[in-house]
């Protein structure tokens, strides 16, 4: 089963623990400037939104790469950048419509989220469950449940229901 990061901006407080966890996982230091996930603050609306790569099924970054340095991990669906192949041309950073592939001037390669090979550090670090890691085919589960609860509220349990003849 493939899994995906599910982000609920309504729960985010803007603490950036996810950015620190990401940079530490990848570079062994706390450095939000090199994080693959970023939290955006919309101050005047009082909103905070974590944002990162969604691992497109047909990834524009992958298709744009002239040296085939981005491959798909069949089991997880993750788009992986191979540092030994990446030449730092940055074409993928232009191709990605979401801006989630970025150049790292320290290494001369591009970086993007790889879901930490199944154990996303950002998800583990999030103190409010604004970032969770769920079945990729059921990422709407929590929202559906919330709306289902809303339609259930106000209705009494109906008791045993007899079948209806059609």
């Amino acid at each position, binding site marked *: 089963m493939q899994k995906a990061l599910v982000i609920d901006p309504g729960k985010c*407080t803007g603490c950036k623990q996810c950015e620190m966890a990401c940079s*530490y996982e990848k570079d*062994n230091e*706390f450095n939000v400037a*090199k994080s693959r996930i970023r939290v955006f603050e919309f101050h*005047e609306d*009082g909103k905070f939104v974590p944002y990162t790569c969604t691992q497109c099924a047909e990834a524009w970054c992958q298709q744009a790469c002239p040296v085939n340095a981005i491959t798909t991990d069949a089991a997880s669906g993750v788009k992986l950048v191979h540092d030994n192949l990446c030449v730092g041309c940055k074409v993928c950073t232009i191709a990605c419509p979401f801006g989630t592939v970025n150049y790292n001037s320290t290494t001369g390669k591009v970086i993007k989220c790889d879901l930490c090979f199944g154990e996303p550090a950002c998800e583990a670090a999030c*103190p409010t469950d604004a970032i969770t890691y769920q079945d990729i085919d059921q990422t709407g589960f929590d929202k559906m449940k919330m709306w289902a609860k809303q339609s259930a509220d106000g209705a009494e349990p109906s008791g045993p229901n007899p079948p209806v003849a059609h």
Partner: protein
Amino acid sequence: MGWHRKILRINLSKGTVDVEPLNMEWAQQYLGQRGLASKYLINEIDPKVDPLSPDNKMIFATGPLTGTAASTGGRYSVITKGPLTNAIACSNSGGYWGAEFKFAGWDMLILEGKAEKPVYLTIMDDKVELHDASEIWGTTVWHTDDWIKTKHQDPMMHIAAIGVSGEKEVLYSAIVNDLHRAAGRSGVGAVMGSKNLKAIAVRGTQGVAVKDGKTFLKATMDGKKVLAENAVTGQGLPTYGTQVLMNVINEAGAMPTRNHRDVQFEGSHDISAEAMHEPRKTDGKKNLLTNQACFGCTIACGRISKIDENHFSVKNKPEYWHASGGLEYEAAWALGSNTGIDDLEALTYVNFICNEQGMDPISFGATVSAAMELYDLGLLTTEHTGGIELKFGSAEALVKCVELTGKAEGFGKELGMGSLRLCTKYGRPDLSMTVKGQEFPAYDSRGIQGMGLTYATSNRGACHLRSYTVSSEILGIPEKTDPLATEGKPALVKAFQDATAAVDSAGICVFTTFAWTLEDIAPQVDAACEGGWTPDRMMEVGERIWNMERMFNMQAGFTGKDDNLPPRLLSEPAKTGPAEGRVNGLEKMLPEYYQLRGWTADGVPTNETLSRLAV
């Protein structure tokens, strides 16, 4: 590790930028941030220096945990000699600025001299530049933040700035970073203004490494779990913010009201955390929009509020209709209960202006309260105030006062002196609710006795953040003591003062100590940096810092006589509530406190004490 071991020294008179190694020997003795920067400051300035002269210096300092994944690890402090008090000033701020500065590869910034013309500073990793600030001088913090980011085409910058109040040296001006977090107290913003420095913009890509990563991650994860499971840090603060205290302190009969004439406020519910959560009668919307964390904080006590667009304070002023930093308990109290004003929307607007213009809402509110009492007694009249009817309870008057004081115009110039200078000018210094020139925060020491000793002995003037014995006396953390008793309070105050000095030097927020003890903190510090940090060693460092700050103040001219409270708290009994009939028993606590500190009966640290602590 935990450190870059690099200091940036900028002489604004000469326009020079120098890089120095961090004194690691001192880092062993003073840990970081508050302690370490105070050591630098005291080593470099004359204690008698005029705080607003070019000879005063100011230091922006981080701790070893700043810029790490330790919960709340984003703090920085501004250390200087304060113009409100003439004592050492150390104001701590959250937001994102401190961590970003550390990410730029620096541990500390020392500012000297005075720029010939207004300037602002940009620090982009190793690239450090001073720029002409003539286009933003005379504008607000909020405008400056936007202008610099636009000018440098860098929305990822974090900016600490002063508003017009700081430029004009309003004595309780704050330095505001990230629009609504502040190094708030003691007038550090006025010192920045006196140096012709408008703002410091930082951006960093260097990262912060720690000594022992695996141990560090374990220690910080353990710490976060403790915070999440604690009722105050896991529930109370994120849900209600520090405003969770409003009703609690009011019921305890320790909420200063109308310049401390009363100790309970009849309108407290209307300005409380609960009121911020309730739909307004006027438009059905809530004042509180959401909570916000500072960098790395897993508590998230910050308030983000929106003002009713039809409220008189913002009517036809759409520039204030957006969300921004809302009321913390201290601001709600100082602007509300202490002025007798129960209009939540007005207080939120006044708080916005304090952030926008860079003013400490505690000292501002308390100064307005003192002015209201002078007005009530007929010592101030509309002739002095420029027509403002400065009555207790008047939201209209408060709104006019904040607009004038933020720009230091008209009667705002008088209010900008702070309550002691104002009350002295109008012949009643006894009505100034201050210690060493700094206004009280939100706890009346007749109802919480330990806070009287806390205020009297605080090294930066009246302050709750030097030893928050409210924790013990009201909340029962770490154990409950009787708020009305003086017995045991000297030892309690000393222990809180020393522990807090250590916490303030580590790079984390003192609010963690509702749940954490030094037993939780020391392992995080020890995994981050060299030094063999244990709880005992942190207490020892805290005591060293306390005595060092004390010695600076004594050399600046303070004596034991300044460890005092205004006569109202010592001789006018509380009128209502659990503390009815009581005054603060400072004289019962102070001699024992001096003794526990190893100071003489006059409050002077003995040579023995100083050499024991290697101050």
